[in-house]
């Protein structure tokens, strides 16, 4: 597997590298969302913009965004598209697992989970990445 970063930046400061990556890929993610909206509107041309918008945003929020966040751990090893598709697939798996056990235990009402679960995934990734980077640096 190639050891390539999508940004092409090779800097010793991992934090800066991550911020640069997020800035660059943040724009690409917005383009992905825009393209998703356009494709949905073309395919479902009889549907209102409101329904189209909420549906595309719903999918993006629930699976694409948490998946992207998760795959930041592999940012140096997988390219953007790989992280986008594998990340979304992983988020589909993770969200369903989390929802299954949270519902089984009655911890969070199922109708709140679509808001809570992506936030939790993103928060956990945001919290763990600095620690992960530190460990990688030590190693």
């Amino acid at each position, binding site marked *: *597997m190639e050891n390539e970063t999508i940004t092409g930046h090779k800097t010793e400061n991992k934090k800066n590298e991550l911020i640069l990556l997020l800035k660059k890929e943040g724009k690409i993610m917005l*383009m992905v969302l825009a*393209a998703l909206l356009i*494709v*949905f509107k*073309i*395919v*479902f*041309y*009889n*549907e209102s913009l409101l*329904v*189209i918008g*909420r*549906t595309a*945003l*719903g*999918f993006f*929020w*629930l699976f694409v965004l948490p998946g992207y966040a998760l795959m930041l*751990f*592999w940012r140096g*090893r997988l390219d953007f*598209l*790989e992280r986008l*598709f*594998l990340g*979304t*697939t*992983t988020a*589909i*798996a*993770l*969200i*369903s*697992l989390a*929802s*299954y*056990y949270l*519902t*089984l235990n*009655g911890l969070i*009402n*199922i*109708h709140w*989970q*679509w808001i809570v*679960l992506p936030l939790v995934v993103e928060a956990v990734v945001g919290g763990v990445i600095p620690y992960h980077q530190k460990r990688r640096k030590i190693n």
Partner: protein
Amino acid sequence: MEKERLAEGALLFAVFGILLWIGLGAYYGHQLDSSFPKGFMATDSFYKYDRAVSLDEAGNNRYVPSYLTGGIKGLEEVYPFASFHNIVLFKDASGLELYNSQYLLNVLYVILAGLLMYTLIKRYNQKIALLSLGIYGFLFIGNFNIGFLYGWWPQIMGSLLLVGMLWIAVFWEQPGFPFLFAILAASAFLAHPPEGMMGGAFAAVIILVDLVKNKFSFRIIKRSLWAFLLFILLVAYYLPIVISDDLVNSTGSFSFSPKESTFPAPMFSHLGWYGWLVLAGIIITLIILINKKGENWKFFAPAFFMGVVTYSALIGINERVYQNRFFWPIYFAIFFGLGLYMAIKYLPAKITRFLWYGIPVILLLISLVYYFQPPAGSGLIANEEMWEGIGWVRENVPTEEKVLIFYGDSYNQNGIYSAFGHIVYYNNWNYYLNNIGYDLSESLAKIQKGEVAENYTSRPFIHHQTLPKRISLFKLEYVDLWKELGLNYEKVDGKGRGFEPRSICGFDYVVFDKKSQIPQFAEYNMKVWGELLKNNFVTEAFSNDWYSILKNEKPGEGCIKNGK
């Protein structure tokens, strides 16, 4: 480089759009939020949908709804539930109706699986990856689309996760990948166990080869064991149900004799002339692998593995593997791409760099024009009126009140009764028409004579035969529902499965279909309906073009004059 990235992005969105058009747009009349469920064409469509409804309405994924068990409560849900969670969450996030959410989400799963496979093939060769996209139209064509019409949502989600597992297993040595694999495998197992097991078997093959090559590296063993432990931990609650005999028995059989498919399974010939390119790709792959002494074998391993799995029913492994043929266009994409690549490579004309991006779109459009036809009809839910009537019963009839459903064309698929969300009784004359061995001659004689009677052979709708109660975390005790309800499940001399003569006067509600493809049945329905309405304690509680639902205020009192 930047131009190529843009071209690739544009191509992938074009592919996404074409597939979404074939997969849902054309069938849904280019709308997203249909006012009634489309594509419910088999009993499974209703059972699966009902699980999502139960989760959505009651937030319950632990117990089987009592309307499926004849009223018995506290019985453990045996069906894997993970896919229904995503359907409900996506419904909440998108604001779509639940049935639209499940259809769209599963179309997106299939497309995502295709795009994920593209990135795997791209690691081997980008041109082959681009060409491989051209076969994806078949994912929604003919028998490859059956999973959508039979409501096999869990299997579709399982298949997406299986593609993810194949991807990860190919790069097993990457840091953290075994843990990612465990998450995907656990979710697949909780969505549709066979795909979880197939992914596990594939990973085992890869690990074994890696171990032999790396002289049994302790690192590989350690990481694989950790992943396995994580997987076990994540499925621990559900594991006792899967390994219990009852579920194993209900999911096909293992014996070394060829098994036929129980549904219209995809055959290789259904790939049309695209299949010839796949065949060419297989032969070329074998030549390359032999010439290069197995170099890059891992990229072809998923295709060969899934090829063997999906043909294994022929040696009797299990007939359920026919379902995995739905994803053939994804599994065999690398063969298709390679076959086409070789064909193009030897063309005298020069292929410009950007033409590689155009060819898959042309191929997709050809499959759309020549092979694709949207599914015929909206399914067993014929129209909005029918759905409205079913919903009326679900929402308005109190749980303890008894409902009888008279003849209707759509009821030839049993699962539809679950949509009423109620313990319902039905006299389904389809059983007679289909001649499956129940003795309904007495009821049919009444219809033929045009006589309205008080007693008709009917049966309660009970989904299961046995279901478990959880005694402890790992211990289940199975309950025979039919025995518990004092009914006979076994079919003896045309009797059993709860078929008994029951008085229509004993029900709180009676549901009549007003229309039928067999006009005599509809006429007879209306005759009984008219007779019931002669009583001043029977009133019409709901009516539209499709249904009339009568409410009997005095169940048990005589309601048919001179009726037998």
